[in-house]
């Protein structure tokens, strides 16, 4: 069963008087539980694709079906509701709220979704334990190392038990060793059933994924599945 289905998706930007086709006529199907790397040079449209998949953006043409539901023309609030429950984001620069503690950052999506405080506490405690952050619960982001920050961000991305995890250069701001830790963590989550989509231009990182999508000039150049 296809989790994500894109059919003839286009995204056009107007830059001055020139028209840029960030994505042109893209067809893509991703099954639940897949591990996908989107690769390509900068400007190839991979970030645009990720934003579309994450419902942060809307295609100018084509159809996007998520879990067999047409989500192409949802209103911003409907998009937000889908993001809240079904999609988790991991960013290159972590995007933690600086004034909130690790525990509060992890609880943020549940707070936005209106989940009661008691349930939030138990789920955050479990997440802190799962991600090895028990000792860091009350630390603010500036008191955490880069690896710990990204682990907090991943805990936050998964706390609502989404179907898809979208990671944009998740190791871009980390050194090799901590970057590997983070990748192993994401892969472990993928192994437990979450669909993992990573955007990277690091070929070594990309090659770890079972399926690699090569983007160039808004086109899908290559769709390669490792056996």
């Amino acid at each position: 069963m296809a989790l994500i289905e894109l059919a003839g998706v286009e995204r056009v930007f107007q830059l001055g008087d020139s028209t840029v086709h960030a994505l042109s006529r893209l067809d893509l199907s991703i099954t639940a539980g897949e591990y996908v790397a989107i690769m390509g040079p900068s400007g190839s449209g991979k970030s645009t694709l990720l934003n579309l998949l994450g419902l942060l953006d809307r295609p100018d043409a084509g159809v996007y079906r998520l879990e067999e539901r047409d989500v192409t023309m949802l209103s911003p609030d409907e998009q937000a509701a889908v993001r809240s429950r079904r999609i988790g984001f991991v960013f290159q620069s972590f995007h933690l709220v600086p004034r909130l503690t690790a525990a509060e950052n992890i609880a943020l999506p549940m707070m936005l979704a209106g989940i009661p405080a008691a349930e939030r506490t138990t789920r955050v405690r479990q997440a802190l334990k799962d991600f090895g952050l028990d000792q860091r619960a009350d630390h603010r982001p500036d008191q955490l190392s880069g690896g710990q920050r990204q682990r907090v961000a991943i805990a936050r991305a998964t706390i609502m038990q989404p179907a898809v995890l979208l990671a944009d250069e998740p190791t871009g701001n980390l050194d090799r060793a901590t970057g590997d830790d983070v990748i192993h963590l994401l892969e472990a989550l993928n192994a437990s059933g979450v669909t993992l989509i990573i955007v990277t231009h690091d070929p070594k990182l990309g090659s770890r994924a079972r399926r690699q999508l090569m983007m160039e000039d808004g086109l899908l150049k290559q769709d390669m599945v490792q056996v």
Partner: protein
Amino acid sequence: MRFPDVLRFARDAATGYPLRTSLSVLAMAIGVAAVVVLTALGDGARRYVVNQFSSLGTNLVIVIPGRSATGGFNPANAVTKTPRDLTTDDAASLTRLSSVQRVAPLLVGTSEISYGGRLRELVVAGTSSTYFDIRNFQIAQGKVLPDEDWNRAIPVAVIGEKIRDEIFGSQPAVGQFVRLGDRRVRVIGVLKPTGQGLGMNTDEVVFVPIALAQAMFNSNTLFRILVEARGRSHIDDAKLAVADQLKARHAGEEDVTVITQDAVLATFDKLLRALTAAVAGIAAISLAVAGILVMNVMLVAVTQRTAEIGLLKALGAQGRTIRHAFLAEAAMLSFFGALAGYLLGQLGAFALRQSFPVFPAYPPDWAVVAALVTALSTGLLFGIMPARRAAQMDPVQALMKH
């Protein structure tokens, strides 16, 4: 997002930028404090004047000789004669009116008092025993003027506190004979200090029977007639009856002016209330300025936290949620500003009352409520625009800002 969570989130956001938050809270506080203190001043002035009038006596109707001019100049005015004198008999006739409780004639002049080689100039007020009841004067030593026929010029006097101090010093005053103008009168009483009583400091006055004063000043006419109505509800009746009676006695000519203390008081009250409202209005401008400052601060907050807004959207926050969070923050800034300003203003009014005890500088309730409501509503109103801007932000663009 649940309501307590919205509040907690807004609180954390506000306290995350302490300088910016405290400055806008301060601006709002100054605005509210200005309203509270200035209206306390205005209303204090009103209370002060009202108190002064009340010390004049209650349910008072005052008769003044002469007609306050109405209509412009016309040839007929030029040939009319001077108004008829207001006499003691006129005053006596008023006591028979049913709506009147007491009547006191009043004749005022200046003269000299001398005793034991000391001499000073003073105001001599000729009146009757009823005057002391009407004006609520308390006697310190001796007694008030005797309740006698108004036409008998008994040579007695009741003196004010300050006169006693200056003429008699520490010696007993009651029972002593003093020279008043060219008369020898016996002091029979000393008044308790009453202070300023609208133009006339009663501590520096000598009261003598009306007939004695008329003889001293060789005058038949009265300066005023003070009439006390039987009750508050009788003031208007008394005023009409007094005017009719005097008109009848003066051959149908309306040559006196009858005013009520209430009317004078109401005029001053209205005037000073208007003044207070005007001052409050001026102070309210600072509230509007504070409101705009809150808007400014919130706009800066939205710009500063663009990436955070993008993140919240990515995490599934709807526009409404973000709008509420920023509105709550603006409301908090104005609420705590208003609260601090209220306390500051009350403190200022308290300091005023401490430094000027005669001046009852209490801010009126309406002004306090209006200041708080205006502060909160301007804060919220000016918070709407920044909150909308935050809510409408494009998540992709917002996330890229860093």
